[in-house]
């Protein structure tokens, strides 16, 4: 334990000396400047998954038309509002359609996020269907409400947090490990009675400390905080553990810093883009859950934006934890074999 602490302090000192810490501090500031500039995405013309409630009385013509338009809508009939909300929060459906009690012969649409390209796509599809059926206004959807009521900063925060955690895991740690291998510093440290696992643990703790510091800074700057703080903290810790272990493993696959940075970027971008962009693209929504990063991003989004908790996200938590353990073990095996040292 003492050795691990000494090694961790040494690693943090290295992070200061080689400007790694400056990079970590720079990202949150960059994020908030970039926020004002980011506003583009593509709308996918895919089938929209709509939830309809069995206990609702829909205007007959509308219900029939929606069901008949199977090239545009995939309708799931649900027993009650509670079940529908659960599916919506789990991204299994794109929106819930109910009859609008305030305005007869019209519909109310409940979506996750009102100001999103996804919602625009749904409304556009309804509008096109109505035009095809009736050919004139007023619009079928007379009311749109959303589960998320939040600012732009809150809405985009999970994306930036994912970016920072992946940056530490895939870019910073592999490069630092490759540097220690390249300069034979690691072999020098192994001339002392430290255990290989202690060195690896120090790297892991360093990665987690950097990721958690950057995340905290993001929250301080945006003044956005989650309702379920323990659930949130659990995902931040387990996520930074998982991706730090992943990064340590990547570091062992590289002989030098340059190759580590290259490999890091190659792994970083595919992990970042589908997860962060999944919300605005149905195609990406289908692919994203296959990536480990989505298992962190989705719970963070749920907890921060929908007041979700850890209870319904235990699969993601265990997935991240197990992946981290596997990566740590693989890194340990490579270290024992003095791989590319």
């Amino acid at each position: 334990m003492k050795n691990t602490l000494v090694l961790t302090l040494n690693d943090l000192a290295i992070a200061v000396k080689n400007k790694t810490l400056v990079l970590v501090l720079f990202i949150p500031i960059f994020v908030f400047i970039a926020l004002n500039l980011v506003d583009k995405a593509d709308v996918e013309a895919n089938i929209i998954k709509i939830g309809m409630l069995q206990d609702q009385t829909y205007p007959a013509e509308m219900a029939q038309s929606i069901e008949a338009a199977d090239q545009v809508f995939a309708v799931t009939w649900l027993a009650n509002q509670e079940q529908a909300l659960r599916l919506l929060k789990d991204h299994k459906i794109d929106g819930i359609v109910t009859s609008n009690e305030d305005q007869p012969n019209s519909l109310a649409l409940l979506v996750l996020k009102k100001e999103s390209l996804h919602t625009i796509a749904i409304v556009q599809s309804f509008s096109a269907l109505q035009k095809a059926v009736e050919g004139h206004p007023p619009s079928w959807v007379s009311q749109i409400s959303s589960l998320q009521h939040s600012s732009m900063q809150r809405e985009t925060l999970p994306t930036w947090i994912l970016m920072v955690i992946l940056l530490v895991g895939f870019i910073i740690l592999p490069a630092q490990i490759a540097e220690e291998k390249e300069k034979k510093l690691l072999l020098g440290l192994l001339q002392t009675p430290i255990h290989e696992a202690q060195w690896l643990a120090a790297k892991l703790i360093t990665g987690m400390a950097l990721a958690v510091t950057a995340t905290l800074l993001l929250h301080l700057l945006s003044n956005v905080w989650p309702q379920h703080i323990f659930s949130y903290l659990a995902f931040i810790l387990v996520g930074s553990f998982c991706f730090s272990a992943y990064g340590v493993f990547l570091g062992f696959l590289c002989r030098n810093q340059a190759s580590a940075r290259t490999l890091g970027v190659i792994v970083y971008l595919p992990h970042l883009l589908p997860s962060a962009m999944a919300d605005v693209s149905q195609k990406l929504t289908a692919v994203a859950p296959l990536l480990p990063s989505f298992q962190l991003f989705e719970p963070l989004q749920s907890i921060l934006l929908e007041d979700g908790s850890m209870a319904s996200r235990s699969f993601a938590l265990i997935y991240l934890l197990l992946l981290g353990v596997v990566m740590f073990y693989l890194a340990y095996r490579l270290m024992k074999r003095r791989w590319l040292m």
Partner: protein
Amino acid sequence: MQLQVNNLTKIYGQNRGLTPTSFAVEKGELIAIVGHNGAGKSTLLKMLANWIVPDSGDVSIDGIDLKNRAAAVRKIGFIPEDPNLFDFFSVEYNLKLFAKLAQTPLLRVEDILTELNLLSFRKAKVQTLSKGLKQRVSIGRTLLASPSVLLLDEPTSGLDFETTREIYRLLNTMHAAGKTILFTSHRPEEIKNLATRIMVLHKGQVIFDGLPEEYFQSDIHAELYA
């Protein structure tokens, strides 16, 4: 027998490395390992230092199996050709870091700084030091844990005359203090002045193992430097 090497083997591609090699070293010997580049000298030392995992074979130091790394590293110290120090930290920081990890009293750092004439450089960043000074820091770091066997890979490579003499003085001092030393070298005068025994490696095989007088009279020496 202080160091026992049995069938130690490491083969890289194109038959480079070290073929099965066995030898024993008595306490207090000062052995020069010579041979052309790629003969297997550094590979041998790095395997003894646990830097390279051998394909096969066993090594024991004072009866401790080298595979028991945590115990073996207290017995053996390795000084590589290029000092592997944390360049952006001071001499003192480097020594204290290794003292802590080696669980050596920090007072030992003061002794090392004094013994190796490094007191005036204690606050200097390693990256600002000459190669000779870095080599002294590297030796000092290794001596912190007082290992009984020292391995030096071309300790005077790239050093000027004065610094080379300083390294010779250090080697002689360590030898006089009872340390067992194995070093690789390309310099005949270095081998002649320092070694009490010479091992010659050629294409991964030991082709000579004997006294310096025998070596310098043999054809092997003549062929090696032809």
